[in-house]
């Protein structure tokens, strides 16, 4: 068969309309097509506006309600008993608890995650094994955070017979780990092969190449991933409510129930007392400020990355 025979001859005048009919573009009259175009554009803009509505509404409401009761006092005082007036009221213990647990979770998950990603991009040679691990990491990142909480409850809380900051930290670390691995992996993949070869040519072994050349070059990308993981962990509630539980007092070491901002918001939002509802908004303002600051910082780090190539 010659190639030319696949195309209709040029003088196939009667066939042309049929071709248009069957090609997926029905021959419509121009007004219908115009209505479709304008209508769809309008619909898309309408729905796009709807998408931005909740973000605006949430941010506006939290700033409005949160600022109404915000003062320096809430950042340094313990929760006051309900009904007592004239006593300093705040949630400093919850802020401290969140910082402690996110801090320990970061200490656990950052080194582990970065080194695991190094294996995936630098050392692993068995492609099938690498694919399986990568797949597992992606699946792990999709495990609901409440299930992670149940897992840590079964593993640590039942074993130690105690709700503790340590259990909460482990739960947060499990949630952070896949985020850090995936972000580090894509950052390491961006480092050009020539840099690794140059390091090897200078006599560096694999550890030296990885630590001093590859990871250093990928540091902005890794930092972004780590910051996003920290922001995510700071806002998590579900894995904490039955691992770290809550407490009205200052954190008393790693082996006792520990308050956190997110659990405080949950408890106070469901509270029948209006003062506690108000305090939930103020705590939400503090937590959201923290989380969004880390998030935007993470994206700025990425934007000002030194070009690698």
């Amino acid at each position, binding site marked *: 068969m010659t190639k030319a025979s696949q195309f209709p001859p040029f003088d196939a005048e009667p066939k042309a309309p049929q071709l248009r009919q069957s*090609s997926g573009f029905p021959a419509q009259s121009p007004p219908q097509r115009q209505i479709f175009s304008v209508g769809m554009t309008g619909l898309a803009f309408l729905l796009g506006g709807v998408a931005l509505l909740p*973000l605006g509404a*949430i941010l506006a409401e*939290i700033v409005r309600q949160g600022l109404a009761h915000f003062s320096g006092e809430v950042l340094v005082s313990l929760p006051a008993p309900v009904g007592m007036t004239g006593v300093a009221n705040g949630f400093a213990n919850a802020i401290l608890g969140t910082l402690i647990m996110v801090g320990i979770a970061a200490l656990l998950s950052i080194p*582990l995650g970065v080194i695991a990603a190094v294996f995936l991009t630098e050392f692993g040679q068995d492609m099938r094994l690498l694919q399986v691990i990568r797949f597992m990491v992606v699946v792990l990142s999709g495990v609901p*955070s409440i299930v992670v909480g149940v897992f840590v409850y079964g593993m640590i809380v039942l074993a130690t017979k105690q709700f503790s900051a340590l259990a909460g930290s482990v739960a947060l670390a499990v949630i952070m*780990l896949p985020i850090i691995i995936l972000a580090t992996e894509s950052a390491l993949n961006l480092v050009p092969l020539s840099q690794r070869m140059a390091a090897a040519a200078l006599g560096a072994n694999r550890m030296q190449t990885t630590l001093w050349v590859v990871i250093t070059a990928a540091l902005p990308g890794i930092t972004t991933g780590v910051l996003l993981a920290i922001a995510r962990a700071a806002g998590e509630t579900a894995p904490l409510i039955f691992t770290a539980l809550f407490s009205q007092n200052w954190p008393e070491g790693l082996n006792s129930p520990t308050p956190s901002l*997110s659990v405080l918001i949950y408890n106070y939002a469901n509270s029948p007392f209006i003062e506690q509802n108000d305090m939930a908004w103020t705590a939400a303002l503090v937590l*959201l400020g923290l989380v969004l600051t880390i998030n935007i910082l993470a994206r700025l780090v990425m934007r000002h990355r030194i070009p690698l190539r």
Partner: protein
Amino acid sequence: MANSFKTELQGVRFGLDTGFTWLARASAMVPVVLLVAIGWVIGQQAWPAMQAFGLSFLWGQDWDVGAALFGALPYIYGTLVSAAIALLLAVPVGLSVAILTTESFLPTWVREPVAFLVELIAAIPSVIVGLWGIFVLIPFLMPMQTWLFDHWRWVPLFSTEPYGPGMLTAGVILAIMILPTLAALGRDVLLALPPELRMAAMAVGATRWETIAHVNLPAASAGILGAVTLGLGRALGETMAVTMVIGNSPQISASLLDLGYTIPAVLANQFAEAVDELHLGALMYLALVLFLLTLAVNVVAVLMVRAVGMQTP
């Protein structure tokens, strides 16, 4: 002398290098071990309930802690229905955002901030969305729910008097929370389409929307379906915001205005207080069902997204 110093140094360096390689290998196994351990630990704890109820747990409708009678159906029903409402609401909106931010309706300096702002919703902690849901969204949706009940109560979907919290409210909250996933992934898929497709469609006289409807969206359908499935996985496991607005009442009602309950919500509410072995076992059993459900959904989603990645160069 110099020579022996050098070999010694190399020996130390070699040992370090080997150790580092093994450390990396061991670390890479941690996620795999964790995933297996999650299933194993939860399964082990759920064993008493599995022995007591077997598979009939899945279609049992009673949940009575005092009588030690546990059935999961109302929770499974609530989880699936609230996620379905969320998808129905979020897919058109998410697709619109994906189309608006990949087409040239708007200049780039508007498009990129819009895409960023929609993705920022994902950064808001779920408990804060729930707080907003209780005090802002429920009062906001209440007139609409009352109107639905007043005018459409002959439709089974709207046949009960609205309380404020309930299945529909939970669906709306979930839709807001999975919107960023759909918008961001949909945008990625549309951006990955080869530009020749659009050029060819335009060249045969298609308008912009004809190109989108007949060429771009069908070509991207596998990836978009993957994005929707990932969104579904998120919606099934979402806990705090849903717990705060669904009403937490274990019942199966055809009406979307009625109260409901989901698996994550019952775990959040009852776990810390569960002392009875069978109660704890039943909760663990529920967690196992949720884990396997989200696992299946996520595996399908990842495979779908990956299949698309293979197609596009």
